């Protein structure tokens, strides 16, 4: 798969583990060592109890599309359009919503409520970006 053109992320102390795991095809979020709540995007502090000790937890189940858009505008040279962007939530993981591309179905078939598998694809700057896969 060719890398998706775009702007690569700045990697920080908080976000480094996410992008490193993405390269391995894994979706990790922060989890509080005190109360167990999950937070995303990573802030280095629990959004539930404000504990400062965070570990990383992998999310493996299927997700549900909360909302989406199909982009038709070629914002950058070489950008292939149209493409669907989905905002995905995960049953049993409150506080986690992840934005990513959608593949595995034509963009116009993307719909709120559809079930997706976690995935990644080559993105700008050598990063792996979230790329959810329409579940059969």
């Amino acid at each position: 798969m060719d890398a998706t053109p775009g702007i690569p992320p700045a990697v920080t102390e908080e976000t480094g583990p996410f992008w490193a795991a993405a390269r391995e095809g894994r979706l990790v979020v922060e989890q509080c060592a005190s109360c167990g709540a999950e937070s995303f995007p990573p802030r280095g502090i629990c959004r539930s109890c404000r504990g400062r000790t965070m570990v990383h937890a992998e999310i493996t189940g299927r997700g549900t599309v909360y909302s989406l858009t199909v982009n038709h505008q070629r914002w950058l040279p070489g950008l292939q359009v149209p493409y669907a962007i989905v905002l995905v939530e995960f049953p049993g993981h409150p506080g986690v919503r992840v934005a990513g591309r959608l593949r595995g179905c034509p963009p116009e078939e993307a719909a709120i409520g559809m079930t997706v598998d976690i995935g990644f694809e080559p993105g700008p700057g050598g990063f792996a970006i979230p790329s959810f896969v329409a579940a059969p």
Partner: protein
Amino acid sequence: MGTDLLERRAVISGVGQSAIGRRVERSGLQLTLDAVLAAVEDAGLTLDDIDGLAMFPGGGAANLPGYANGNLYEVQDALRITTTWRQGIIEGMALPFYGPAMAVATGQARHVVVWRTVKEGSAARAAGGRPAYGAGKPVAEGPLAWLLPIGMLSPVCQVAPYAARYMHEYGVTREQLAWIPVTQRAHAALNPDAVYRSALTVDDYLAARMISTPMCLYDCDVPADGATAIVVSAAGTAPALRAPVRIEAMAGVVEGRPSWEQWEDMGRVGHGAARAMWARTGLRPGDVDVAQLYDGFTIEAVWWLEAMGFCGTGEAGAFVEGGERIALDGELPLNTWGGQLSGGRLHAAFGHTAEAVRQLRGEAGARQVRGAEVAAVTNVGGLEAGAALLTRWN
């Protein structure tokens, strides 16, 4: 509630604008000076009266070409103004007059000029279309780090999922929402300074190309060049002012996650700010004569129609359908200058505030709403949110 409210100690005394258009061949600094000088004169003041300066955005904000102009240091130097209060804001402005009103209400300054200058029309032309984020920086920082790498390369893509979710939850259609840009275009036809003034129909809207579903070209505001300046004065100076306007109530509450993609309930935006604003006044939604509601995109005007209580949640489609209610002679004339959708993306409710002031003074020309005594002004909605009522002086 009452006269001890901080915003009652401030008035909006002047508004001024530069030439506005898709492309104005002047620098951002010259456009800014045009607007500032016009606003000070409009207030009935001279530059020597000005002791506070503010702008949005401060610093080197935003990774969007043409977005930030009219540097505060350069403007202050050019005008030889001594300031006792200054503010250049990136986050947390709420409304253009919010910070300046606090400054004059607390005695830190007597007359503050705040401006917003955009050159996004020229930037769009240079880019061959509405520019993407990121043209100025090679990497996506902060909140944009989660958006730009996956292809959410414009505010259009960031806001589109709100429209999709809203329409899904409440069964609102594009045929209904079309009436917002269509009606505002009819208003723009009466505004000589609007960027687009030719007639727009629902059929035109439905035939327009998609930018990012469900938002088409006419759901997006028009990148423009232009500057807007607003003078905010201490209420005690009113006898020396030409035509002040009262700030009846204002609020800038942000509740929920201040993030485009993490906002929890994308079907409801702006309700916290609106609720806090209504708690500061005895006026009710039915008292509003004219509404200048932020419309960077059609859906943002929808948020505010509902958050402000002009209609119920999920009811904006039915409210705007047919356009009668939001027309100049309707129950709630909406964005009477054309809004950002047709008047130009003057941004951050600067154009909306200028129009509200003109309407309350009876200086809105062919688009004047008869007997306008109470105007609503709102800004953005989610990660930034501001809501206010302005009222006629007498």
